[in-house]
């Protein structure tokens, strides 16, 4: 490798390969939405729309018929709806972690993946928000979740973590949306300047908020971006902590543990990065983004998955230790029952996918192997779904009163609603690819060797 391919002085491999110039970056990234979409896009969009219809149908039938169409039974009053909610919110953690925390930590490699990781976050949070909204059964009074003055004097119970959820997730969504949009502004201005039709000029001109790229604008912009990163950082940690209190505040054995907030946050980052890896492998292949999302980027994400995977593994074992150490037989039963009881199959899927699979990433050649990380990232998200399944279902199905124990199985409507939520996710994601820059052009240019003007003479060697 020649010196031009290293960021001078840092010894780090280059973040953008392929001898790109600023102009060629713009051409490449803008070319994706400006050009004709490949056939697979239309096929994928058709599939995603069909799944979206499945979601609409399942929700319509749910509203018509009530939550009785789901597999909920007497001890298991929380089923797939809450599992899917937690799972989707968890996936929605990577985006803001990448954009805010890694930004504050000066991790410059984030620039290649932050744009679509943030988009993924927004779409995942939208998918997540569907489930608490529809699981209330009487969806027409869902506004009761919000503190709105009304003639019933009804007021949400602020001591309930379910209400904290409403605020935590909606705050997170708002902050992520603002952060995403702020990051988009310079790129939207590029789109505006390149737009060939009047309609596009008007739309991108409106969205670019009059961006001219002047020195003063950049100064304000970067300050705003820094502030938003500061605001978003605690949210990354707080959202899933609050979600975990839905469980931890209750007194059900297996839920009532103080380890839940950090354990949930680690799991959320784990699954979020897995989803980013899955999507970025597909996107870099189909849109030839290998120069921007290099193997080094993917390897770094795999390292984060290895770390967070071990954190959840630690949490799984610590739950058992504390159950034993507490001397509380109900607590002990809850965990032994998880591993050996009626849901042992789900428990061992969870352990295999979440604890064993990431161990592959100890090996550099596996960490840098696209097929391995693609399959591993999907398995990790399967495992994370089963983690929530194990937590929600095994604790409820076998609770304090053995006479009411029951086995929970989903109905076709549970399954269709969950599959349908992928329709929403991929519809939005494909539209995002179709219309917006999937790589943060302005930021990527800032980490290219050419951006370091003081090293011009070396870079032009």
């Amino acid at each position, binding site marked *: 490798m020649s010196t031009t391919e290293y960021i001078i002085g840092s010894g780090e491999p280059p973040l953008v390969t392929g001898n790109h110039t600023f102009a060629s970056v713009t051409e490449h990234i803008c070319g994706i939405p400006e050009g004709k979409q490949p056939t697979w896009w239309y096929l994928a969009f058709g599939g995603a729309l069909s799944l979206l219809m499945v979601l609409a149908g399942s929700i319509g039938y749910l509203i018509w018929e009530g939550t009785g169409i789901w597999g909920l039974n007497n001890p298991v009053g929380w089923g797939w709806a809450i599992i899917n909610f937690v799972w989707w919110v968890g996936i929605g953690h990577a985006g803001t972690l990448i954009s805010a925390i890694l930004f504050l930590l000066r991790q410059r490699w984030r620039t290649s993946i932050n744009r679509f990781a943030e988009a993924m976050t927004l779409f995942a949070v939208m998918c997540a928000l569907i489930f608490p909204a529809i699981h209330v059964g009487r969806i027409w009074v869902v506004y009761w979740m919000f503190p709105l*003055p*009304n*003639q*019933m*004097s*009804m007021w949400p119970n602020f001591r309930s973590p379910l209400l904290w959820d409403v605020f935590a997730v909606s705050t997170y969504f708002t902050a992520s949306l603002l952060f995403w949009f702020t990051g988009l502004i310079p790129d939207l201005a590029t789109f*505006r*300047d390149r737009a060939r039709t009047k309609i596009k*000029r*008007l739309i991108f*001109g*409106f969205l670019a908020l009059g961006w001219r790229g002047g020195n003063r604008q950049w100064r304000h912009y970067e300050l705003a971006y820094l502030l938003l990163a500061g605001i978003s950082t605690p949210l990354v940690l707080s959202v899933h902590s609050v979600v975990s209190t839905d469980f931890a505040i209750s007194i059900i054995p297996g839920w009532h543990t103080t380890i839940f907030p950090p354990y949930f946050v680690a799991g959320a980052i784990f699954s979020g990065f897995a989803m980013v890896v899955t999507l970025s492998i597909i996107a870099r292949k189909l849109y030839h983004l290998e120069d921007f999302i290099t193997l080094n980027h993917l390897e770094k994400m795999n390292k984060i998955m290895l770390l967070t995977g071990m954190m959840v593994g630690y949490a799984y074992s610590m739950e058992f230790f504390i159950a034993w150490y507490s001397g509380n037989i109900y607590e002990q039963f809850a965990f032994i029952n998880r591993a050996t009881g009626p849901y042992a199959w789900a428990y061992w899927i969870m352990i295999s996918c979440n604890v064993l699979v990431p161990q592959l990433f100890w090996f550099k050649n596996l960490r840098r192997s696209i097929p391995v990380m693609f399959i591993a990232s999907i398995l990790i998200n399967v495992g994370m779904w089963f983690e929530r399944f194990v937590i929600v279902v095994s604790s409820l199905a076998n609770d304090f009163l053995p006479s009411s124990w029951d086995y929970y199985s989903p109905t076709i409507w549970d399954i269709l609603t969950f599959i349908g939520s992928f329709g929403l996710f991929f519809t939005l994601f494909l539209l995002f690819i179709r219309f917006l820059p999937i790589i943060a052009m302005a930021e990527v240019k800032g980490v290219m060797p050419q951006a370091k003007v003081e090293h011009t003479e070396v870079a032009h060697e």
Partner: protein
Amino acid sequence: MAQIFPKWTNRIPTFVAIGTVLIVVSATAFVWYYFSPWYTDVGYAPVQPVPYSHKLHAGDLGIDCRYCHYSVEQSRHANVPPTQVCMNCHKLILPESQKLLPVRESFANNIPIKWTRVHKVGEYAYFDHSAHLRAGVGCVECHGRVDQMDVVHQVKPLSMSWCLDCHRNPDMYLRPTIEVTNMEYVVPPRVEQLKFAEDFRRAHDINPPEDCSACHR
């Protein structure tokens, strides 16, 4: 590069900001009033099959509420009187009146008169008249001055928050049990009333419930 937007578009943000404030404020005010039972329910005065006047009977003639609505002290329901109660008097008073023809027909054919209910509470809300009378809540507190109404109409919103207003602070709405049907009872000045309410509530163990299941059983 040519300007994309004409100059007047610079004013759009101002208009949007002002418009948003106006729309939010007026929508809130609109919903606040027009969607509330103060607007939708208060004043409801259906036409009854017989032009019966509470003003004449309860006001001018001074008949006690409980002469007709006699189950009110024993039952959840304040009954609508059967035709027989009307005929107790109207056998002898105005027996030839044209206005009373439906009453006499009802009595002769043994078919009840189809009175239209004025005060409606949701079926999901449990309400017990007898409990409220025993607790010293006068008829007038919820039904208003029925003794002054030719046609009975709804005076209070009967909304949940209206119920809760009294359940949370009942003191100013209580009176001696003997006075519950007195339409002209005057609540004493605040200090004496609070003293009375304190003693009365202790004596009768009056603790209005505020939990959901008190009314939504």
